[in-house]
């Protein structure tokens, strides 16, 4: 059974006392209520020690009540859902929640690594740069592993995240960050004006500080005003309120990033639902009403559990009815901190004392003190006595030098407030300093964005409402909406008098960055060593680099740096603010793009037929292509592929080649256009003919190749390689629209319109005769090599037939409209059955192209010229074309270039491997004699040995030379002969036959 909620207040709070929830922290069971955060529930149970710090493993308690929390980080959930570094202050309580403290061993109370504190005199900022250098090998072996184990915070699950994420877009006129008084007022004004509004609130309840601080708006108690306002907003159809949603970044063109924690408040997401959703919000205007963060004061012992931000303390009391302490002292330098005293007294808690660093305290609070019977001490806290179990005693240096002690079990601290300037500064804006509040405020913002209320440095409730309202109305107006906004909500402004105080000198460690254990003396040391720039300071000490992104530490840190370096705070400046505003799960940025849905999948028209045949598929770009079709009894891929090759060479086979890019080139100037993009000429291609074409990039290097046919006077059908299909389309559109706009050319991708099959082998014509209308003449005369025309098929559909060959066999490629692709495969099987037709995959295709010496991807590698590929003769000298001039540069026409050549091991039993390098025979391999490499290999069933292509220095002059294939990666060295790359039917008789 759960322990009693010893620190739960009897009444009040926005918790649902009828919904009790059990949870576990470090294995111990507690109970809380619906509406609690893990932090508030721990507080209600009297838990003070919740974590250990990064470097010194110091015991730490809860410091804040929001996403700026540096200390109270836990591993939330267990198993595959374990989430390290989760802020207890924002984690919503649910039934069965499990959390564990982190960065401690064996337990939170007894952490062995806390011995680090003993070495604290050595472990100062930057100490590791000065040591661990000897002996050099010890770094990876000894020092670094030890440092790595000690560092880090929580443990990641280490197994795949079982939850789903998605991403979505939203659009609005006015985007509002924050649902405090300024945000709600902005939403009211913008919504009433007729604008489309999205309001994002990171909390699960709307209201911001209104939920904790109370007050009166429009003469109504805050709670009542809040419910009326929310009802009014809910009634506006174009106002969308998103809770549990943090606006974390602003990108160009009014695009904002937000993270919605859709189901983090449940043990796991319901079926079909995501854990979190990433929003890309497009907004014409944005009102940042993200409020301000109360800042600590740096003093010795300020990290003792029980020391808490004053505003957080009253949040726990007022909103969660949980008492962080029963006898509370307040250390403040401003008027606002006193509100915690009011809240505590109102909840029946004891005030031990108020330590106020200001010379004066207002009369109202002075009388509150006398009524409450607690002293007001003018001075500063100089030390804290206590430990794991919290604060016991507080040492005070009184103004004038005397000392005092205060007994208390909790210390509320208020050093003033820092506007949340993150969002407004993410476009590398630097905020400006305002002396009256001793804080940085936004100085400009990304286009379309404005800060209002506390986020703009105006902390009073009245100011927040009026500023927020005005900002919302103006934003709506700018977005073109001029409906009646009505009047702004009205409230009084509280007094805010502050005397800046950053650091109280004293004995003992005084923390600036709690999580990273950066102390005031670390900052002094950094200054001494020349790391005076705030960026150097950050990097040298790690100040502000913890999971709270410096929200509680940065300003104090640079104020201390300013003091020790004799500069003003604005002169010292801030570091660059970087998104995201709160840490965001990597899974959310990925959305559904993981596992098999990482990228889209393209399927060929005959895919499901091939799958029925048991094809093995290979990923080629986004495509799944049939790689080979294994048959029962075949022992490996090589056996299957060899069978397929033999079947083609000896009979007939077919292969789906629909993945080739296909482009319709129309227009009066289509031929002239192609002449400019190909190195060879197409304007003189006869209708009904196909031609192989090669295109270069403008730098003279080969870009792509393919066969292009002329189907009509003003219509060419261009094919590209599978890999370059989209890029060639883009390139051709560039040529058409930018380079040669004077030409009449229209381009359309028809890649998906046509299912295209290569049918190859000596019995191709026999097969085709079965399937093509008998009226079509397929004879060598009626349909010669490189012919291309439309034909009718039996059964009444039309196809395009191209007499082209990649395999070197008598071959055709046939195209049918894609929805007939599946039927085509089945019909080819049917028609070819008498001839032993064999479907073949990309491997067999590859084998035959290597046998035939055709270049492909490994040779078209972005560094080869047409001449390197043996295609230099195709380069027309009679016309201008893309890449012509640059192709003539001296190094691209040098005689010692690596060019395509055939390669075969002298030992026929030897396997050749791609990536082996070519070294002259008898030489020791070295950079000076590395003459090229093997680009493509295959086992050639035709030659009964491994063969390949390579790029070899002066290769074509060296046909017949025996060289060395050097493959140290695989421990192989063997002799190979450089040979004609066309291993098979070099005269081309078979494809023309």
């Amino acid at each position, binding site marked *: 059974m759960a322990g009693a909620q010893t620190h739960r207040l009897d009444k009040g709070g926005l918790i649902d006392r009828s919904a009790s929830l059990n949870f576990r922290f470090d294995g111990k069971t507690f109970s809380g209520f619906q509406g609690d955060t893990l932090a508030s529930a721990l507080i209600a149970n009297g838990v003070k020690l919740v974590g250990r710090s990064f470097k010194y493993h110091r015991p730490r308690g809860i410091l804040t009540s929001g996403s700026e929390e540096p200390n109270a980080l836990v591993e939330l959930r267990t198993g595959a859902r374990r989430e390290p*570094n989760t802020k207890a202050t924002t984690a919503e309580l649910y039934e069965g929640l499990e959390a564990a403290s982190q960065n401690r061993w064996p337990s939170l109370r007894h952490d062995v690594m806390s011995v680090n504190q003993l070495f604290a*005199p050595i472990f100062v900022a930057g100490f590791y740069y000065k040591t661990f250098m000897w002996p*050099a090998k010890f770094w990876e072996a000894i020092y670094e592993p030890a440092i790595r184990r000690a560092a880090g915070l929580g443990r990641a699950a280490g197994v795949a995240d079982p939850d789903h994420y998605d991403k979505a877009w939203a659009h609005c006129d006015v985007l509002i960050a924050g649902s405090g008084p300024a945000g709600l007022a902005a939403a009211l004004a913008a919504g009433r004006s007729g604008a489309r509004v999205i309001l994002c609130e990171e909390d699960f309840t709307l209201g911001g500080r209104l939920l904790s601080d109370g007050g009166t708006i429009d003469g109504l108690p805050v709670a009542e005003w809040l419910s009326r306002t929310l009802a009014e907003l809910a009634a506006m159809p174009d106002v969308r309120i998103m809770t549990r949603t943090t606006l974390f970044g602003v990108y160009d063109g009014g695009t904002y990033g937000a993270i919605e924690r859709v189901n983090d408040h449940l043990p796991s997401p319901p079926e079909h639902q995501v854990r979190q959703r990433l929003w890309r919000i497009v907004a014409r205007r944005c009102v940042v009403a993200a409020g301000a963060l109360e800042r600590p004061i740096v003093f010795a012992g300020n990290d003792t559990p029980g020391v808490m931000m004053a505003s957080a303390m009253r949040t726990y009391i007022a909103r969660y009815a949980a008492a962080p302490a029963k006898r509370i002292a307040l250390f403040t330098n401003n008027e606002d901190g006193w509100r915690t005293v009011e809240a505590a007294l109102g909840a029946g808690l004891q005030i031990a004392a108020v330590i106020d660093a200001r010379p004066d305290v207002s009369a109202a609070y002075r009388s509150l003190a006398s009524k409450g019977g607690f002293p007001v001490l003018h001075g500063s806290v100089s030390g804290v006595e206590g430990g794991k179990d919290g604060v016991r005693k507080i040492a005070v240096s009184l103004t004038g030098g005397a000392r005092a002690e205060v007994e208390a079990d909790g210390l509320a601290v208020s050093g003033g407030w820092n506007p949340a300037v993150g969002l407004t500064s993410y476009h590398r804006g630097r905020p400006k300093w305002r002396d009256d509040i001793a804080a940085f405020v936004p100085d400009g913002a990304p286009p379309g964005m404005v800060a209002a209320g506390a986020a703009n440095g105006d902390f009073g409730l009245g100011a927040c409402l009026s500023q927020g309202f005005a900002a919302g109305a103006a934003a709506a107006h700018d977005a073109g909406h001029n409906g009646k906004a009505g009047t702004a909500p009205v409230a009084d402004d509280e007094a805010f008098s502050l005397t800046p105080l950053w650091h109280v000198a004293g004995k003992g460690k005084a923390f600036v960055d709690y999580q990273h254990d950066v102390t005031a003396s670390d900052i002094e040391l950094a200054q001494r060593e020349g790391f005076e720039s705030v960026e150097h300071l950050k990097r040298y000490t790690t100040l502000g680099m913890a999971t709270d992104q410096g929200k509680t530490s940065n300003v104090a840190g640079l104020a201390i740096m300013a003091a020790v370096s004799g500069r003003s705070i604005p002169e010292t400046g801030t570091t660059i603010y970087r998104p*995201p505003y709160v840490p965001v799960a990597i899974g959310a940025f990925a959305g559904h793009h993981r596992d098999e849905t990482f990228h889209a999948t393209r399927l060929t028209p005959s895919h499901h037929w091939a799958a029925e045949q048991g094809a093995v598929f290979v990923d080629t770009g986004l495509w799944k292509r049939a790689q080979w079709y294994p048959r029962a009894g075949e022992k490996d891929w090589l056996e299957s592929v060899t069978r397929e090759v033999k079947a083609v060479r000896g009979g007939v086979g077919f292969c789906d080649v629909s993945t080739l890019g296909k482009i319709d080139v129309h227009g009066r100037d289509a031929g002239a256009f192609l002449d400019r993009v190909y190195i060879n000429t197409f304007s003189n291609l006869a209708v009904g003919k196909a031609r192989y074409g090669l295109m270069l990039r403008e730098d003279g290097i080969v870009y792509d190749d393919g066969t292009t046919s002329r189907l009509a006077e003003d219509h060419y059908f261009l094919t590209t390689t599978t890999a370059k299909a989209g890029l060639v389309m883009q390139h051709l559109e560039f040529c058409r629209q930018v380079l040669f706009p004077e030409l009449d050319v229209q381009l359309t991708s028809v890649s998906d319109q046509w299912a295209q099959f290569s049918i190859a082998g000596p019995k191709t014509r026999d097969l085709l005769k079965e399937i093509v209308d008998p009226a079509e003449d397929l004879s060598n005369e009626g349909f010669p090599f490189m012919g291309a025309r439309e034909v009718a098929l039996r059964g009444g559909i039309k196809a395009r037939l191209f007499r082209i060959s990649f395999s070197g066999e008598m071959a055709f490629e046939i195209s049918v409209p894609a929805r007939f692709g599946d039927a085509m495969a089945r019909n080819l099987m049917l028609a070819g059955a008498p001839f032993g037709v064999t479907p073949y995959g990309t491997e067999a295709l590859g084998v035959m192209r290597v046998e035939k010496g055709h270049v492909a991807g490994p040779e078209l590698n972005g560094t080869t010229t047409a001449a390197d590929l043996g295609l230099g003769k195709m380069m027309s000298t009679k016309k201008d074309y893309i890449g012509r001039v640059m192709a003539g540069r001296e*190094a691209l026409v040098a005689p010692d270039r690596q060019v395509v050549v055939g390669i075969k091991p002298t030992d026929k039993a030897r396997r050749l491997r791609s990536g082996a*390098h070519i070294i002259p025979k008898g030489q020791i391999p070295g950079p000076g004699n590395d003459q090229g490499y093997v680009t493509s290999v295959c086992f050639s069933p035709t030659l009964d040995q491994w063969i390949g292509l390579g790029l070899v220095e002066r290769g074509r002059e060296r046909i017949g030379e025996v060289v060395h294939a050097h493959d140290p990666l*695989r421990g192989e060295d063997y002799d190979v002969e450089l040979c004609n790359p066309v291993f098979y039917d070099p005269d081309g008789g078979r494809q023309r036959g």
Partner: protein
Amino acid sequence: MKYSIFSLARAALSGHKNWQRTWRDATPKDHYDVVIIGGGGHGLATAWFLASEYGIKNVAVLEKGWIGSGNAGRNTTIIRSNYGLPGNTGFYELSMKLWERMEQDLNYNAMVSQRGVVNLYHSDAQRDAYARRGNTMRINGIDAELLDLTAVKKMMPFLNFDNARFPVQGGLLQRRGGTARHDAVVWGYAHAASALGVDIIQNCEVTGFVRDANGKVTGVETSRGKIGAGKVGMAVAGSSSRVAAMAGLRLPIESHVLQAFVSEAIKPLLPNVMTFGAGHFYVSQSDKGGLVFGGDIDGYNSYAQRGNMPVMEDVCEGGMALMPMIGRVRLLRQWGGIMDMSMDGSPIIDKSPVDGLYLNAGWCYGGFKATPGSGFVFAHLLARDTPHEEAAKFRLDRFRRGAMIDEKGQGAQPNLH
């Protein structure tokens, strides 16, 4: 001040009151033998090698902001020498060898951690390309291993082997690759160079070149006044075009934004550096515990030092595809640097067409790993007026001659390198 465990212990006893500045805060003199523009890793390393290897100590490094404020301070800290083309291979290995002795050279712990770099492959074609590259490395005396699937599984059992869109088939491993603490590299060179007499001058922006009647550069105009120089070297990657324009030069370079990311610190999860071969993602884990990762450049010219969401998403998609265990790890910080993207993806270290002005530019996104090597060969060029043999192919005129060093084969399209 010599750093050692003893000096640290002594300092601890005195409350660390006796530490001196890591580098002297110099005020500019009227004239230096060599002025280096750019107080990043490359500029400072150049200065140190000029002083330590070439005996040229009357050197100033001018930095417009704080040292290391450019790409030296915003990168993903990876070091490796796994390049495949002549020109790059030897140079990056020279650099790797200098990394291996850096800390002893500089008396500064830059946390050079040789914990291995694995480039994963997902197709036969990619394997073949890595085989080619790995063999080039071996031929050049560089360590390289081709891992099969079993070896990858053993080394990185947490990758997605079960239901990946593009299953991992293996990888190319360079065990000597790894990471280094980027800021410490800058501070280490500053520390050591300053000790040899080099003036490191921060908050000193170069606003123009001083030229004599023949057009020779004889100094620089700066925000802290005119500074004379025997030679001026620029090492301002990201801003090379801007600085070169002051001398009337146009370069084969575009400036692009590259984003990088770090997660919250977590206990050790990733043993080595790895790159995904089927998407844009590479990652390592810092000693502090954060996953440091990145992907492709945003793809458009930019000096804004910040990027946009599509690339951020693309990178995280790659990460999740490769290892879905990082789904619940949170991205903590995102930043962007300006890359000097050259027209072939390889750097330029050469005399410029303007007498007296020397270029060190075009590092694309590979500048960090090159830091010591770049400093070494640039110092050589500045001292001897001839290129170091390992940088002999990084000439500016290689584009005109057609002798590009194009590892990716993308041609004169910088955003594709």
